[in-house]
């Protein structure tokens, strides 16, 4: 059961129209090696679930520039002017969620929850088309879970089994996404033998992880 593949093999798993979760808060904790490899493939019409869409010419921003992204679901795309342009020209569809609703929807997707009611966004433009419910005199919106075909995540260390540790604030959405996609590919800085990670430091247990890619891309 060898989970280690090259970044090229990882990118080749992605299909036209795939729905892909991508970890990272901006470029921090984003699987940049795998993203770069996807830019070399012919896939397009991708649906990206990620808090942001990189920066111009960096990370997911490159996929936007190459017009490989059909739809984006996340919380903050304003920091990449290329995303604004692509949206205004009609090339890119955007679904915006408050960041807490976005992260909880991913958590729900990975933990078998069919949806949840959150007060965040009630009474705002983001409430349009959402089921509203009053609980104890407070307004809540129904949020359904987010799931994907693939999750591309970034971790710090992995062991051969696929157990993962994270580095500081580069953790962000990564452990949540690891649970919410059919195929989970983790880009890591280092792969050690099973047993070398302390059970206490493992944040994502190996059962969530299908493939490991070493940062840099080689096997």
């Amino acid at each position: 059961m060898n989970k280690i593949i090259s970044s090229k093999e990882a990118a080749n798993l992605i299909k036209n129209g795939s729905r892909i979760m991508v970890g990272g808060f901006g470029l921090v904790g984003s699987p940049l090696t795998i993203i770069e490899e996807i830019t070399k493939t012919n896939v397009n019409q991708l649906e990206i679930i990620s808090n942001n869409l990189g920066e111009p010419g960096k990370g997911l921003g490159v996929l936007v520039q190459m017009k490989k992204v059909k739809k984006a679901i996340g919380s903050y795309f304003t920091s990449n002017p290329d995303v604004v342009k692509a949206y205004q020209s009609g090339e890119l569809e955007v679904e915006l969620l408050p960041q807490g609703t976005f992260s909880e929807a991913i958590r729900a997707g990975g933990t078998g929850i069919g949806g949840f009611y959150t007060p965040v966004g009630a009474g705002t433009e983001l409430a349009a088309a959402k089921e509203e419910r009053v609980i104890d005199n407070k307004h809540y919106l129904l949020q359904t879970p987010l799931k994907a075909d693939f999750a591309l995540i970034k971790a710090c260390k992995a062991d051969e089994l696929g157990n993962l540790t994270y580095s500081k604030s580069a953790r962000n959405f990564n452990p949540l996404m690891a649970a919410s996609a059919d195929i989970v590919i983790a880009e890591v800085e280092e792969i050690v033998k099973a047993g070398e990670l302390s059970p206490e430091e493992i944040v994502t247990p190996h059962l969530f992880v299908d493939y490991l890619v070493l940062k840099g891309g080689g096997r």
Partner: protein
Amino acid sequence: MKPKERIAKRASRELKNRDIVNLGIGIPTLVAEYIPENIQVFLHSENGILGVGPAPKADAVDPDIVNAGKLPVSIEEGASFFDSAASFGMIRGGHIDVSILGVLQVDRSGRVANWAVPGKSVLGVGGAMDLLEGSKKVIVTTMHTTNEGEPKIVEELSYPITSWRKVDLIITELAVFSVQEEGLLLIDKQPNVTLQEIIEKTGAHFEVDQNLIEISDLDGVVAK
């Protein structure tokens, strides 16, 4: 002291020992520089840090430690890291004592617009709605008017509302308003600023506190 620094310093006087505090981008970030030495607060960042410290020197930048504005920060002793769902659970769940945030507008009832501009593509909301909804106390720090001189404190919001939740306090370079059930109450003002000037630059009706304080000596102002 520049106007924005004055606002930040005044806001810092609202913090209490051991408060869990979330600072937004802009003037709120400056508040960290004025926290009184006799209290300890813990700064929370949406991307998964409790215990944010000051910006590091250039040679000590760790690319994996950034704040919610994606800028390099350091961590304090006793800091912790957690995932985004946990972080927003803290916010929504009422575990943040004070959020200090900037606004595009705040209205007479204390409701805020700070995430979208009419006529522009709405492509970012981030944690703005979550922080307003869930924080125990919300303090607005803002310049009193826009760069064009338009009031930011208005009778009714013309920008899209961020949350139904009303903020608790509004601090500008001219004045401080407390948000009451009936509307805005002017509680502090800069000593060199006249009441007339505040009325002219404020787009909403407000009442004046009988015990109006002048912010002549910030260090002497006690948080109410």
